[in-house]
């Protein structure tokens, strides 16, 4: 079964010399630089959503993890755990969208694995991807490099992916034209690195847990405070409306195509302008600043002029009663 799937679905869609060899592993030559290596598993429900599916997400997510290290993404592995009964047409669609996402990102899927499990032992399909990329000389991206005075940027409107997914989740469907922002961000990161180089200190894609969780983690790693300006944070009206209805805070809602950057003040404007020229960064904005105190905390300067802590989220946000 697995071999048949490999030959009829995976190989034709993901075609490249390393994969076509059907060896036990891929043998690769890498360009000079330090190697970045990452992995992530994708177990989402629903597997198809407005603006993407589990296949494109499995490429974007891992490509973005590499990009956030300042690496140029090069190669991916893909492991599929398929529950018996998944329609072959669905699998084809998922693999095709993976192939397309990989082509757009300029990465190749060089090795893979497929397992089929009994009905009830999985949930339609799980995908694991690992990725390697190369970090060019002179690039030093790390959460510990955030320092007081640095400027915080976001590459566009937040919380779009989480709300788009929620709108099609069973039991909570609501009508919206929102589509997930899922996208590969390495090119956007490249645009920032081109203008800021080593002055670009931290990169993070605020996926699960949203902007608030990502910035809390950075504040803790670097032992600094991060202060956000509420009115500067770009939030789309449809997202804002859904959040109001559900009782969600967009700061905690997942993104799959947005990037946070912490940049030396001298280069913040250059990164902002570079992003705004990029198709994935048109709504980029400066949203805050790194400060000394209170250490390890994210603070929000509210639109009415008060200040409050924005904490890590405990568990998932759940729609409230009234």
């Amino acid at each position, binding site marked *: 079964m697995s071999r048949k799937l490999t030959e009829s679905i995976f190989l034709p869609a993901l075609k490249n010399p390393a994969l076509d060899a059907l060896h036990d592993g891929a043998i690769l030559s890498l360009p000079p630089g330090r190697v970045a290596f990452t992995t992530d598993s994708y177990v989402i429900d629903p597997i198809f959503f407005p603006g993407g599916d589990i296949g494109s997400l499995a490429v974007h997510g891992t490509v973005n993890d590499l990009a956030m290290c300042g690496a140029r993404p090069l190669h991916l592995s893909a492991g599929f755990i398929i529950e018996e009964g998944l329609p072959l047409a669905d699998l084809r669609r998922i693999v095709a969208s993976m192939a397309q996402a990989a082509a757009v990102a300029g990465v190749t899927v060089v090795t893979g694995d497929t397992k089929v499990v009994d009905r009830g032992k999985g949930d339609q399909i799980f995908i694991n991807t690992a990725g390697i990329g190369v970090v060019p000389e002179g690039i030093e991206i790390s959460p510990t490099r955030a320092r007081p005075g640095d400027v915080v940027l976001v590459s566009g409107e937040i919380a779009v992916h989480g709300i788009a997914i929620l709108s099609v989740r*069973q*039991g*909570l469907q*609501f009508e919206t034209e929102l589509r997930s922002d899922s996208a590969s961000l390495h090119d956007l990161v490249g645009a920032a690195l081109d203008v800021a180089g080593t002055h670009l200190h931290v990169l993070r894609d605020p996926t699960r847990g949203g902007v608030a969780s990502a910035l809390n983690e950075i504040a803790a790693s670097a032992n600094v405070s991060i202060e956000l300006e509420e009115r500067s944070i770009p939030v789309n*009206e449809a997202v*804002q*409306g859904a959040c*109001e209805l*559900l*009782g969600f805070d967009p700061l905690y809602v997942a993104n799959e195509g947005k990037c946070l950057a912490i940049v030396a003040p001298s280069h913040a404007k250059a990164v902002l302008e570079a992003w705004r020229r990029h198709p994935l960064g048109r709504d980029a904005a400066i949203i805050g600043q790194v400060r000394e105190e*209170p250490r390890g*905390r994210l*603070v929000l300067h*509210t*639109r*009415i*002029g*008060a*200040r*409050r*802590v924005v*904490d890590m989220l*405990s*568990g998932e946000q*759940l*729609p*409230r*009663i*009234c």
Partner: protein
Amino acid sequence: MRFVDEYRDGEAVRRAAAAIASIQTRPWTLMEICGGQTHSILKFGLDQLLPEALTLVHGPGCPVCVTPLELIDQAVEIAARREVIFTSFGDMLRVPGSRKSLLQVKSEGGDVRVVYSPLDAVRLAEENPMRQVVFFAVGFETTAPANAMAVWRAHELGLPNFTILCSHVLVPPAIDAILGAPDSRIQGFLAAGHVCTVEGTGDYEPLARKYHVPIVVTGFEPVDLMAGILICVQALEKGEANVENAYRRSAHTAGNPAARALVRRMFRTCDRAWRGIGVIPGSGLALREEFGAFDAAHRFESAHIRTEEPKECIAGEILLGHKRPSQCGAFGGRCTPEHPLGAPMVSAEGACAAYYAYRRTA
């Protein structure tokens, strides 16, 4: 965003704060009834803009917080049954019962689902005729009409597999209990705008007269809250004790007659236990006898489950406004959103959770 931004306008909020400061001549203590109001006050930082001599005390209007522990235990037991699809608003899922929460039941294989409307639960019952669909009907007057409608719809469809586990509570009897307590220090109330949108303001007139306190119907956005506080302080300074409406864009004297009629058709008032507070006479809604077939406690014989509240949680004193969350010995240490001792630390609207989220070190 229209209809949101204008009610969060910093300029308007600061003007109201200045107006309050300019008329206040002595200390006053107000209670905002609703957890949604508490949450807004702390989230936007309104309390930081108010005069120091104005104390806001956080009331019991959080449906998750006042739902008794034993009802959570009943829900947990029903949800664990193989034939049951247990549906609930999202924020009830994390509330710990004496042994586990609904989320834990779900992780152990129970079919527990979040719905946004009780009518979605009715639809689930239609789609799953071989399963029993139970909806956890909690909340104040605000959610009662939708829950009444769900039962009415199930009744019309003749659905034999839909029930609600009902723990509805009412605001006016709670205000009566708070003001009637011998050590009450509340001098004015901000009533919950959404509740009055449904039920109107008639029930509050006798309370304002009986205890000589102003009661101001107030909304939930920063500008709404500041307007409610301003009107309440004005009344206190003048020695007036009337019911006033600072939420006219939504709440009216007569409420929503269609919703009220439906609620009265389906429910009767009953005595109800409030978590941490105890039984308040006439403070709950229960299904009328003719709709008893839709009562989950009856169908699954869960009413025998009785649970004692943990001693260390002072939810009652918090919910009655006697203490602030930060005055609790367990706050932030033995009691956190990850490991809550009581419901006010769980719910997004709970006062303890709001203090934990927004006020620890800022």
